[in-house]
């Protein structure tokens, strides 16, 4: 490369002091955000769906503004599969346990657990399930049949209040506008085979 005497050359480089100050500020902000989540036990809009179905178990759920409607949705194995869509305005859950079995690239199966030791509060719950095994009780239950072109509207269940106990659900989609998990524990477990639930 020829460098003429009347040439201006741009030399660009990263100055360590500025870099480390910015890096420290960034990680400190990240720490503050995670600490805020930790103190309140809350996360906003945690989309758990779309990555395959998983199992939801809990001891007791008290919910309000319950709605159940038929739904066709994507699962981990199919583009379209029949399921039910449960909606609740608000729900309080005791003994929540969510887990999913995943096969690692090495061939080993691993179970990912999310447990809440305290009470879980959810607002704006939407859940798609292919299998529900639970004890249900309703307050103000209405079952409505309609004659429309949209099959999801033709048969719906609505209840002011719902209580579900000893539940086990195969869930393909879960959305919560706001969720607060008290005493959340996330862990992994090596397993021989994934759980297969006879339907």
């Amino acid at each position, binding site marked *: *490369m020829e*460098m*003429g*005497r*009347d*040439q*201006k*050359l*741009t*030399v*660009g*480089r*990263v*100055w*360590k*002091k*500025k*870099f*480390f*100050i*910015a*890096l420290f*500020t*960034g*990680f400190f*902000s*990240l720490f503050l*955000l*995670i600490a805020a989540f930790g103190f309140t036990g809350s*996360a*906003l*809009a945690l*989309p758990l*769906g*779309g*990555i395959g179905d998983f199992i939801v178990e809990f001891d007791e759920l008290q919910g309000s503004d319950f709605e159940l409607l038929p739904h066709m949705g*994507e699962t981990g194995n199919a583009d379209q599969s029949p399921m039910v869509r449960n909606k609740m305005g608000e729900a309080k859950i005791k003994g929540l346990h969510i887990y999913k079995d995943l096969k690692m690239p090495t061939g080993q199966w691993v179970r990912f657990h999310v447990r809440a030791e305290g009470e879980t509060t959810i607002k*704006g719950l939407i859940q798609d399930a292919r299998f529900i095994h639970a004890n249900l009780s309703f307050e103000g239950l209405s079952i409505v049949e309609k004659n429309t072109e949209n099959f999801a509207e033709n048969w719906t269940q609505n209840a002011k209040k719902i209580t579900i106990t000893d539940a086990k659900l195969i869930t393909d989609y879960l*959305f919560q*506008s706001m969720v607060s998990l008290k005493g959340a524990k996330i862990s992994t477990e090596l397993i021989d085979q994934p759980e297969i639930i006879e339907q």
Partner: protein
Amino acid sequence: MNRREKRRLKREEKLRKAYERLAEGGRFARWKNERPFWGGVLSILSALVILYIPLHLYAIAFIPGTFVFIGFLFGGLLLILGIFSLIYPQFSTVFGVIVIFLSVLSIMGALGGFLIGTILGIVSGSLLVGWERHEVDLSGFGPGAGGSRKGEPAPSVPDAGTGSLQA
């Protein structure tokens, strides 16, 4: 020699080494040198990692009230900022600050690309903030010659013949 003078000489020495490396480099090295290359590339990479989750949840991204759309927004903005930092290097500090801000906030709505995207974004943003451009004037190599960064005295440039540093 006081501390300020020592610091100035140290800075000039670093610039001189960078200039010598550049003199031996090719066209790509010169192009890379004129912009915050690694900051921009890592920003683009962190944007792609952060976008990975919303892209897999695209089916619900446009439902009102979901935060997946925010994941798209943050990842998309990071991608644009990464590209712009390579095109407009003079704004690297501003871009860097915004990249750090968006990377931290991407925890909501995109899970920070499993935190990997967030960490990459913070590092790339810091690289953008730390990057500075100095113009070295090669005309004459005598006293008073040399380029400058605004507000600082002109750094010395090596004598073309002897290779020594002239103040």
